[in-house]
Every structure is written in structure tokens, then in C-alpha cells.
């Protein structure tokens, strides 16, 4: 056996020095990899977000981040940490189409995070995409795997509030057919959207006076960041 060759009683200076050097080298390595991968990671995230926003707001080709500060909705390039943010979607001509609102809340198994598109002019939810969920495979995961259920959110009135009803008994424009066997998951999605809507509706400006698109895309340039 080769015992570690360190002497029986190394000075404490040596101990501290070893740790310091190890820490320093590790720091350099970590910062190195962080700086190298950062551009790709940021680009990936931006693309993912963009794809989700375009999905929940049909007809949208450009977007900008909006936050609520001092009683009005302002355009920001980089929202601060922990600041709730929504996205304004505009079509190719720069006309405002709707908002994409991220929301989250408890589901059947764990937190469900989603993004929904909202057109304030029609007071309608026009699209919904689940970003994160651990719902039961085969049942609860229908909230994103079942195209019929997702399609329920393509023209859905928010007044007085969205309601999930037993499958096949849908009567009003504010009702969603729940999923047989996964009522809780379906209701959770509806509740999350309702809560987020209540929270945001008072912060949104009157229809027609939405923030203008500040940095229009150079002629539609998909994928480039």
C-alpha cells in the first residue's frame, strides 16, 4: 500500500495553502466552463421561451418582456430577479396581438408551470402550453399530451371565470371539458390560469393602449437571436 506521502505533521500553512490552491484552480475551471457555455445556454433559453410564446399566441412573430412597475406596464430588456414578467406578442407588422402569461401552482403531484396566451380585446385565452409538470403518466399528463384538452384553451372566455366541467357537458364559452380520470390535474390547470388572470387583469392597460413594440425584429428572422 502506498500511503499518501504527506509528512506526519505538515504545517497549517501548508494545509491552508493546499486548500487555497485547490479552490483557486477549481474556481478558474468553473468560471471557464461557465463563460464558455453561457452564450449557448442563454440562446437555448431564449429560443425555448420564444417558441412557447409563439405557440400560445397564434399569429405572433415578435415579442418583448413586460413588467409592472409603478402602476404601469413597461418594456424591459432584462427583468430583475423575482420580478413577475409577462410577454407582449406582436405580429409581423408590429401590431399588438396579446399577452403570454407564465403561471404556476400546485397540481396533483407537484407544481405545474405553464404559459398561456391572452387576447385582452376578446377577453379570451387563446393558447396554453405546459412548461413543467410531474403529473401521473397516462392520466394527469394528458394536460399536455392530449391534444383535445390543450385545444380547449384556444378560444376560451375568461368571464366570469374559467370552469372545468365533466367531459361532454360543456355548454358555455368559458367552460373546459375536464379529462376523465384526471379531474384534479385538469382543474389545477384551470385554477392556475384563473388565479394568474385575476392577478394580472388589474395591472393590464385598457385594450388598445398596450406598450408599443420597442425593438422590432429586422424582417422576420426566425431562430436568430
Amino acid at each position, binding site marked *: 500500500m502506498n500511503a499518501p506521502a504527506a509528512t506526519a505533521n505538515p504545517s497549517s500553512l501548508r494545509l491552508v495553502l493546499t486548500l487555497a490552491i485547490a479552490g483557486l484552480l477549481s474556481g478558474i475551471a468553473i468560471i471557464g466552463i461557465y463563460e464558455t457555455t453561457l452564450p449557448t445556454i442563454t440562446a437555448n433559453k431564449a429560443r425555448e421561451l420564444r417558441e412557447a410564446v409563439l405557440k400560445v399566441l397564434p399569429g405572433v412573430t415578435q415579442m418583448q418582456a413586460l413588467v409592472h412597475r409603478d402602476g404601469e406596464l413597461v418594456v424591459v430588456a432584462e427583468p430583475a430577479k423575482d420580478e413577475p414578467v409577462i410577454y407582449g406578442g406582436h405580429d409581423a407588422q408590429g401590431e399588438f396581438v396579446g399577452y403570454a402569461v407564465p403561471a404556476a401552482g400546485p397540481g*396533483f403531484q407537484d407544481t405545474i408551470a405553464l404559459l398561456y396566451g391572452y387576447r385582452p380585446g376578446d377577453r379570451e385565452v387563446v393558447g396554453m402550453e405546459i412548461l413543467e409538470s410531474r403529473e*401521473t403518466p*397516462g*392520466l394527469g399528463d394528458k394536460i399536455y399530451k392530449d391534444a383535445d384538452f390543450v385545444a380547449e384553451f384556444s378560444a376560451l372566455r375568461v368571464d366570469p371565470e374559467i370552469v372545468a366541467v*365533466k367531459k361532454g357537458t360543456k355548454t358555455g364559452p368559458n367552460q373546459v371539458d*375536464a379529462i*376523465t*380520470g384526471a*379531474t*384534479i390535474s385538469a382543474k389545477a390547470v384551470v385554477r392556475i390560469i384563473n388565479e394568474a388572470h385575476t392577478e394580472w387583469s388589474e395591472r393590464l392597460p385598457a385594450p388598445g393602449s398596450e406598450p408599443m413594440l420597442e425593438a422590432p425584429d429586422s424582417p422576420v428572422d426566425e431562430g436568430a437571436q
Partner: protein
Amino acid sequence: MKKRDPDLLLFHAPLLRQGMTTPSAMRDVVWALLPATAASLWFFGISAVLVLASSIAGAVLAEWLFANKEARGESLRDSSGIVTGLLLGLTLPPGLPLWMAFLGGFVGICLGKVIWGGLGHNLFNPALLGRAFLQATFPIAMTTWVPATGDAGFFAIYPGNLALPFMQVSVDAMTSATPLGLMKFEQVVTPLNELAFGKINGSLGETSGVALLLGGVYLWARRDLDWRIPVSILATVILFSACLGLFDAERFPTPWFSVFSGGLLLGAIYMATDPVTSPVTPRGAWIFGIGVGVLVMLIRVFGGLPEGVMYAILLMNAATPLIDRYTQPRVFGRGIESP
């Protein structure tokens, strides 16, 4: 080998009074289940026979395959495999594919008995383990409730029953919700007399509360069951519902609805009382029963699932070693604080 003082052994259940043998106790349970079985045949026809037979076959096959050579004859004769299969079958939906019922019986015996070294050593109720496995494995099939055959006649088989092994049900079954599901998701209350006498949707055995109670009385009269457990479970459920009713009578179920709906009676009388997997001391039995009652109501009212009897009993099975340990009359005697 065995480390403890033989006086302290409390796991050689089933603990029986003198003159009783395991086969006779098991046979009593089969007799007691007759009314409920008959009710399930009456309401669900030939499908009930097929589902029950499949789960019994699965259980008995597992028992036979894994028993020691010497014990093989014995373990079959004490008919505990049949009881497990029958109990499991009674908790299954009538339209369940038969291969799933078979698998449930097989897995129930494997997980519930074989790995523990056979009857008397298991810590969980084998029938409920089989059902929990099926519920987790085939959540859709296990929550597809077909309505009672009624007019279609005794020999009408639910199409779901005949799915090929490992395959899905290809036909869309006519489904409907159980009274608990109706209550929880649509706020529809099923009238009490239907709950008590049957013809409600649900698993095979839970359709008629009265039939289950009859069997319970028989078991009690034969002294095969510790009356403290069903009594404490039912009392807890009634009290819990009554308290909730004080807050909001509209939203929460009434006490009688809670008792007669779902698998509560089946679970409280036949499964929670399994002498092997419930505490031995009277005080332990009360704690066990109250625990089951509270968990059932917690899951039914505040949980995501409409029914929680199976989970409540399994969870209290898991806690039984702890209950036994802390309700022993001062044997370990160190007054360790209960965690």
C-alpha cells in the same frame, strides 16, 4: 437467529384462540363474504364470476409456485390464497381485463406473502397490496367503472374483461362515476338507500353495504374479528364527517354517506381486521382504527383521489410495528418518545 426473548414475540400471528386453526378461520372469512359475493353476481353478472375467478387463480398459483416443497400442500389447504384472491377480486372494477385481475392476485401474494416467508409473517395485507399495485400500474383500467348490467342479463360480459394479456382494452367502455367520484368532482349525492342495498357503480364488493355488514356480524359472532377495529374506524369516520358538516354541510359528505360509500365497509370489516397485519393489544387496535378512519377522510376530502380506504389501511399496516411497540405494557419500558 431470533434475537428477542420468546415471551416478547408478537409476530406469530394469526393469533388464534385455542381450538381454532388457520384453515377454519380462513373458511369463516369465505363464508362471511358470501352475501357480498352473491350481491356482486346479482349486480354484475357473469363478469363478476370471471374477475373473481381470475384473481383467485393468480393468488393460488403464486402460492403454489413459491411455497417450499414440504409446505406446498399445507399452504394450499389453509385456503389463505383463496381468501386473498377473493378479497382482492371484490375490490376490483367489474369491467377490469381478466389478465389484470390475475396479475393482481399473483403480485399480491408475491409482495404480500412470499417475500416475508409466508402466512403469519407478512406486515401488509396481501389483497390490498395486489390492488395498490394494480391501481398504480393500470390507473385508467382501475378507474373505469362500468354500470351494473341490469337489463342486459346475467350472461352479458363487459367487453373490457376480454382484453388480451398485456394489451389495452380496445373498445370504449360505457363508463360512469362512483358515488364518491360524483360527490367529489360533481357535487352529486347518491341517495342512502341505493348505497345501502346496492346497484351503485363501484368495485364488485362495495356495491351493497348491507351484505357486507351481514358478513361482519357473522364474523363477530364467530369471534374471528377484533370488533374494536371496525368500530373505531367507523366511529372516527362518522365523527370526522359530522365535524366537517358543521363547517359546510353543502360541500362535505354526511356521516352516513361516508360510511356506506366506497370500500369503507369492505375495508373496515375484512381487511383492516386481518390479525396478522394489525396491532395485537386492545389499545393498539383502537389507535389503528382511529388512524385508518382519519386517513380515509383526509384522502377522501382533502386529497386528489376520490377513495382512500386502501391507502389508509396500507399506511396503518406500515405503522403497526410502531404501534405494537409503543402499546406494549412496559416491556421495553424506556418510555422513548414516540417519533
